[in-house]
């Protein structure tokens, strides 16, 4: 009895240790986004709310911005429209956030640093990321507003279309790794950075990255919330903390996709210098490499937003169905042949 209570408490503490850094990452990802896009457009970005935690460093321009933003959102009025279905309206953001956080249960941050080392890890991730679309559908329906409804329809159709391409890309990863367990997927990429799956699975890597952008409704696939036509899409009626929950879910999903790309294609926590003379003696903890790779992928997420104009909706659907699905199908066959012929160094 006491043992199981202790086990429960320890698990809850572990979960909090995972969730709090994710929340902090989400907060500072919003700042990074504004700063990076700012500098790309030759402006400074947010620079008013300074944080000077360390004496001597006086001018961390804009580093307090996420804190100021969240405090502002806390004190904003939550508006529930008269015609809305109140229960669904309030529960939709919760349904969007819970799976975006729960998916982190199986992510290995470093060797052995994983909450639940289950052998159906990837299947669980696929299930959790699929549930996220319900939050969007329900919010669009419950708001009883035209923009929200249109945004939800577009968003749901887009997400499920790209989920197929994503699923086929996952099949490729499974074939190469031979396991659904995320830790084993990373371990099967052991060796230098040339052993990582991004080389043999290069088309799937690109497809997964672009589908990840579409899944999280990021630019250039952000027609669902296209500001210039349907204002904010499915969350147009949401304000204050209810909006903040959608925001949290979206960015947590973004970091999740970046982590998955890191784990499946970029060797997770493995050092890129392994097997290279001299450089292999540089020892840094696995969590450092994991974080660095995730940050690298996220930078590309932000970069695409600064560079590309928004796609038209028919172009989005064409890319998903007529380009990505054929590419992934062909590459699954090619990969099958590569594995049959035991192509070194990956499948030897």
């Amino acid at each position: 009895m006491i043992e199981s209570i202790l086990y429960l408490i320890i698990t809850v503490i572990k979960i909090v240790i995972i969730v709090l850094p994710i929340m902090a990452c989400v907060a500072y990802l919003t700042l990074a986004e504004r700063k990076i896009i700012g500098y790309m457009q030759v402006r400074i970005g947010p620079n008013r709310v300074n944080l000077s935690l360390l004496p001597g460093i006086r001018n961390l321009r804009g580093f307090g911005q996420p804190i100021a933003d969240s405090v502002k959102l806390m004190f904003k009025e939550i508006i529930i429209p008269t015609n809305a279905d109140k229960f669904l309206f309030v529960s939709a953001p919760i349904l969007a956030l819970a799976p975006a956080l729960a998916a982190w249960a199986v992510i290995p941050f470093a060797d052995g640093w994983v909450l639940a080392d289950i052998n159906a890890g990837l299947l669980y991730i696929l299930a959790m990321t699929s549930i996220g679309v319900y939050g969007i559908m329900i919010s669009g329906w419950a708001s009883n507003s035209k923009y929200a409804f249109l945004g939800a329809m577009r968003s749901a159709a887009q997400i499920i279309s790209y989920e197929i391409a994503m699923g086929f890309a996952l099949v490729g990863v499974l074939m190469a790794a031979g396991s659904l367990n995320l830790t084993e997927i990373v371990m099967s990429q052991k060796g230098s950075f040339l052993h990582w799956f991004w080389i043999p699975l290069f088309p799937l890597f690109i497809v997964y990255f672009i589908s990840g952008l579409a899944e999280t409704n990021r630019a250039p696939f952000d027609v669902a919330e296209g500001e210039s036509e349907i204002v904010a899409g499915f969350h147009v009626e949401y304000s204050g903390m209810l909006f903040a929950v959608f925001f949290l879910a979206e960015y947590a999903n973004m970091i999740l996709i970046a982590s998955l790309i890191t784990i499946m294609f970029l060797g997770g926590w493995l050092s890129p210098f392994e097997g290279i003379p001299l450089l292999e003696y540089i020892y840094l903890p696995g969590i450092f490499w994991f974080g660095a790779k995730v940050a690298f992928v996220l930078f590309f997420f932000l970069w695409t937003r600064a560079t590309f104009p928004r796609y038209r909706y028919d172009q989005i659907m064409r890319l998903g169905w007529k380009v990505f699905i054929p590419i992934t199908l062909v590459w699954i066959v090619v990969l099958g042949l590569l594995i049959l012929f035991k192509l070194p160094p990956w499948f030897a």
Partner: protein
Amino acid sequence: MLENYMPIFLFIVIGLVIGIIVPTIGFFLGNRQPDSEKNSPYECGFEAFEDARMKFDVRYYLVAILFILFDLEIAFLFPWAVIFKSAGLFEFVAMMIFLTILVIGFIYEWKKGALEWE
């Protein structure tokens, strides 16, 4: 075996709890002065003049059906992909036959225009 899933269940519960706590903070701290104008659905300043739950394009429905088909195919591919490394030519050929049937269906719906948006 199954006790590995206990932390996952707890994580889902905690995710839901966070999802409930965060808006609750907003309900307590936020100002609340509702009026009929503020609570009406947003339509760029116009009065909302009909129900928002209007007819929608049948293609959205079509996409959903196609999604179910393809997602099922992926579910079939998953167990095959996991054991593929230890399998041989027979398994490869078997799955190629399956994929060929899938591709024939895919070509059919492409030719029928189910994937066209304008």
